[in-house]
């Protein structure tokens, strides 16, 4: 009996141990400081500062292989960080103005939106080189990868549309008109919907990924930037750059139900893996606001560095 119990314990540890024991970190890009700060989300402390390229903006943390990828639009390259060493292992020149960045769930491909070249550049993570590019619309900004890695969603800011791209074929499958100056793009955890923040029409477009049409447009605050999905609570959290707030959209009713005061010029926003919190990077205030999703209030603020942007998915295991 004891032997079986031991086996069960070992089995449980192997399955659940890693998840229980790993800490979650937030990797925040700081435009004004040319670095990424690493925040321990258990202690709410800054635990490392990693110098990267010039005026870093976008961030994509790999789900499985201890890497984080950062875009530096003013040095026109991406910095590849080894999250265990907490150091940059390589910089790769990309285009003329790389901003949006996303990594697929397999960790094999990194997509970079270059808003001057009007293209998505693809980095193969096994060799850490750009191997391909896909021409898209004008000023591609936010990008997001579907949960099954088959599709990439790209917002073209100056064309007011969202493109659906077949990753394997490197082909544009669909072009969907959205609001004015679309920027941040987020895919639902189930992959059934895509959410787009339209900066100049102060609204969010909700797209059904199967029918590839806009099913709702929800009014938010002024100059919305990016979106985090709280799947469990069936809500979206949207940063409003000029209002210094976050709008909370209830997906059931398709309306904004709450507005949370955060810091100045909030930009990047992402949901903590436990789903109990959402972190917001405040560009003007140089700090992160931590929102509790249960109460929809700010419960903590963490000092980061000058010009925090964190545009993309910025949580990761170390």
């Amino acid at each position, binding site marked *: 009996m004891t032997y079986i119990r031991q086996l069960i314990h070992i089995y449980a540890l192997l399955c659940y141990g890693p998840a229980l024991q790993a800490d979650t970190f937030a990797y925040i890009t700081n435009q004004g400081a040319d670095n990424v700060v690493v925040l321990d989300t258990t202690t709410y402390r800054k635990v490392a500062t990693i110098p990267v390229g010039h005026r870093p903006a976008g961030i994509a943390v790999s789900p499985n292989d201890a890497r984080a990828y950062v875009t530096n639009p003013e040095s026109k390259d991406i910095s590849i960080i080894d999250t265990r060493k907490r150091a940059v292992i390589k910089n790769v020149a990309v285009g*003329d103005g790389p901003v949006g960045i996303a990594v697929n769930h397999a960790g094999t491909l990194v997509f970079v939106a270059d808003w001057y070249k009007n293209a998505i550049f693809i980095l193969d993570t096994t060799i850490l080189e750009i191997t391909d590019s896909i021409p898209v619309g004008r000023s591609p900004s936010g990008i997001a990868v579907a949960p099954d890695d088959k599709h990439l969603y790209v917002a073209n800011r100056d064309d007011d549309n969202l493109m659906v791209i077949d990753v394997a074929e490197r082909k544009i499958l669909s072009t969907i008109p959205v609001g004015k100056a679309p920027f941040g793009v987020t895919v639902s955890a189930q992959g059934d919907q895509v959410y787009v923040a339209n900066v100049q029409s102060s609204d969010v477009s909700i797209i059904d990924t199967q029918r590839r049409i806009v099913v709702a447009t929800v009014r938010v605050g002024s100059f919305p930037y990016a979106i985090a999905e709280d799947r469990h609570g069936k809500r979206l959290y949207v940063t409003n750059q000029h209002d210094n707030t976050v709008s909370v959209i209830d997906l059931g009713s398709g309306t904004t139900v709450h507005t949370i005061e955060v810091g100045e010029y909030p930009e990047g926003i992402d949901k903590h893996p436990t789903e109990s919190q959402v972190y917001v990077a405040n560009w*003007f205030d140089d700090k992160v606001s931590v929102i509790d999703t249960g109460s929809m209030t700010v419960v903590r603020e963490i000092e980061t560095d000058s010009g925090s942007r964190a545009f993309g998915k910025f949580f990761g295991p170390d």
Partner: protein
Amino acid sequence: MLNLLRPALIVLFLLPALVVAHGPSRQKVDKQIEINAPVAKVWGIISDFCAIKSWNPAVTACESDKGNEVDSERIVTLENGQKMKEKLIKYSTEQFSYQYMMVEPNVEAFPINTHGASITVKEGDGGKSIVEWKGAFYRSFPGPNPPPELSDEAAGKALSDFYTKGLEQIKKLAE
């Protein structure tokens, strides 16, 4: 002569792109000045949306359509004759503060786009006041390699000088 014309020529050539385009990195200007006068007096000097023509020597004229009502638009004329159109977004007498936003860019005024700013009078130590004028903008040059006079640094310096001139004059008027 061509040196002076160059920015204008670049702008005209790129005009279709200019309306929506800007650089990828937002820039910040944040200036403060301490004034030996109470908050109410200092606020009195700046509280009108168009009072900027009195307290900023770099401004020669100002007209607004709705005074201090939210959504009021002011047209500010600079020393070089160029005009800026700005809209009032927030106004608070209680907080001695207002916030405004550029309506459309004018490269000949400043090479910036999407400029939003706020000016606030706060209480300092010992009956003094502090005026803080802070804003954010993007360079308006729509491409990746701006010429030096249209770069982030040039735009930031020009706007910073504009803010500083204003704050220094407010101090002179108040003390």
